[in-house]
């Protein structure tokens, strides 16, 4: 049984009958080739989209929530409704101490400022930040450093600027480290530049200065603009959000059912939505790909069936000459499997080429960067091929059985 696979004659027979009818062979192969090509193209693109998404959000601690203060919507303990609520540093500290599952609480303040360098100027978002921000919202430093603890302690007038700002305020290739820029008339020394391009959650900030410096120059005192809370990976961020808000209401004399007093943006929840979307897309991809594959396999079966019909007489002759039904079936199945494998391999190769093409036009380094490293794992490809071969064999069985179910005498009579 196995030996026949290594005999030249077996393959000669396969070769003869496949090359005899080129059109049918080609049509069959196109069916399978197209199926595999689509599967790989779709899976690869889905992966690419996922990769680019991860790149955008990968720098964020996704298990995080932003909380800011608004005004109350319910009267409580003698306070009127509509009271403006303010967050303070002590609120942040208490949350960090008391809420379960907290990883970091990062207070932030945010404002707009007129920024001037030499004769160039612009209005940009300025935020006061702790070094910790770098932990929850990774900054890709292109030059210099981010804000450090000494900046905080000494209320230093230093600034970390985005690449965008550099492009707008500095001449091309001009050195900016150690240079001074003016924020609302005050001189700040530039100590670092980070890469823009990542998705920015919350208000846009192009310039980061030390939190303490910010509080000082804007006379904020203990008040903070908003805070970013991240949970440990094993904790549910929605629970942390509601715990933290409840604590804040408690600390600020606000009705526990007041829904408007604190605003929140739950990044974890939003991220889950997008991940869900990606999952859905991946499922769709698989579904379409596999359906196409199955269609391809049926194409093989169909064409083999026609072929067998065409070859009824030949099969009859072969049987008259002493071919056993098993030998006939074996031959037909081998043809099916052979076609499937060859077309499948061609599909894999051209699918790979398509992914390379996608990568070069939409991948890293291209303008859009929407499909980063569009790829399919080898395992998936081989599983697809194996499924294809198994289905090809099963589908080959139908015409093979049909071929041998006809009596040789009837087959010979066929004109």
């Amino acid at each position, binding site marked *: 049984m196995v030996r026949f696979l290594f005999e030249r004659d077996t393959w000669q027979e396969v070769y003869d009958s496949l090359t005899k009818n080129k059109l049918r062979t080609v049509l069959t192969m196109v069916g399978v080739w197209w199926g595999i090509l689509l599967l790989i193209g779709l899976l690869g693109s889905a992966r690419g989209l996922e990769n680019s998404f991860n790149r955008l959000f990968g720098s964020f601690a996704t298990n995080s929530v932003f909380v800011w203060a608004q005004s109350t919507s319910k009267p409580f303990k003698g306070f009127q409704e509509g009271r403006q609520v303010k967050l303070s540093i002590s609120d942040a500290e208490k949350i960090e101490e008391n809420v379960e599952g907290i990883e970091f609480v990062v207070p932030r303040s945010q404002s707009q400022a007129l920024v001037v360098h030499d004769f160039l100027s612009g209005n940009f978002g300025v935020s006061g930040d702790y070094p910790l921000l770098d932990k929850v919202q990774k900054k890709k430093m292109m030059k210099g450093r981010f804000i450090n603890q000494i900046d905080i302690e000494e209320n230093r007038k230093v600034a970390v600027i985005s690449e965008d700002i550099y492009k707008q305020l500095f001449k091309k290739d001009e050195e900016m480290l150690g240079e001074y820029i003016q924020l609302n008339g005050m001189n700040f020394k530039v100590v670092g530049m980070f890469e823009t391009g990542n998705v920015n959650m919350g208000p846009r900030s192009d310039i980061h200065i030390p939190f303490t410096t910010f509080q000082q120059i804007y006379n904020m005192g203990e008040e903070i603009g908003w805070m970013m809370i991240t949970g440990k990976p094993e904790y549910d961020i929605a629970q942390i959000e509601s715990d933290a808000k409840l604590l804040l209401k408690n600390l600020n004399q606000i009705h526990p059912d007041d829904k408007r007093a604190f605003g929140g943006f739950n990044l974890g929840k939003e991220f889950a939505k997008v991940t869900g979307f990606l999952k859905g897309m991946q499922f769709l991809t698989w579904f379409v790909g596999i359906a196409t594959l199955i269609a391809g396999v049926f194409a093989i079966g169909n064409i083999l069936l026609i072929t067998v019909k065409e070859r009824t*007489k030949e099969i009859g*002759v*072969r*049987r*008259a*000459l002493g071919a*056993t039904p098993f030998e006939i079936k074996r031959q037909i199945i081998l043809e099916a499997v052979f076609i499937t494998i060859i077309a499948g391999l061609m599909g894999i190769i051209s699918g790979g080429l398509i992914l390379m093409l996608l990568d070069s036009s939409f991948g890293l380094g291209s303008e859009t960067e929407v499909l980063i490293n569009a790829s399919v794992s080898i395992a998936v490809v081989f599983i697809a091929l194996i499924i294809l071969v198994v289905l090809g064999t099963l589908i080959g069985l139908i015409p093979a059985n049909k071929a041998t179910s006809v009596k040789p*005498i009837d087959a010979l009579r066929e004109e």
Partner: protein
Amino acid sequence: MLKINKLHKSYPIGDSSLHVLKGIDLSVESGEMVAIMGSSGSGKSTLLNIIGMLDEADEGEYVLDNVPIKNLTEKKAAIYRNKFLGFIFQSFNLINYKNALDNVALPLYYQGLKRKERIEKGLFHLEKVGLRDWADHLPNELSGGQKQRVAIARALAANPKLLLADEPTGALDTKTSHEIMEFIQSLNDEGKTILMVTHEEDIANMCKRIVRLKDGVIMEDTFVEQVRASQYV
């Protein structure tokens, strides 16, 4: 060599059935050359198919070379066909995408012979039918007579005990028919047992014995003076 006893065969046609063979008794000795004649519908082809194990009888005995042929599985029938029988068809039935040599060697392939041996034997038999130079030609590059000779070479390739020919000259003109018959006679001279179905009187007379069928029974079974085909060629 071949012994048939009270053979019956009927085919279902719709709800009723057509009784084609109604008790055939026939025995053929080794080295005979028998023509089976009859008008169409007389059952001559059915008889040949049963002898050729392409079809099965409903009733009766059939013994070929002391082997009772009964309740054969498809596999066993295939092996017996390959070992005992050589077929020559009216429409040649060559495989059109294989060249003459590969066609001749096909039964040997199913016998499990090595390629080298098959080529050797195939060429030997092509030589015998005088077509060695045409070995790598496809059937559609050959004339009708040449095709039939290739088919005969193929029938001979497995060295069968019995040659079965179904109207071997039916698709050929008179001159080519005679050439083919001359060749078949020479095979018989060498000792091959030959059974052929024909409805042409002159072809039948080139055999040594004529069995006439009518409505599924043997009407007449006579030994005749063989007319040599060579005198017409």
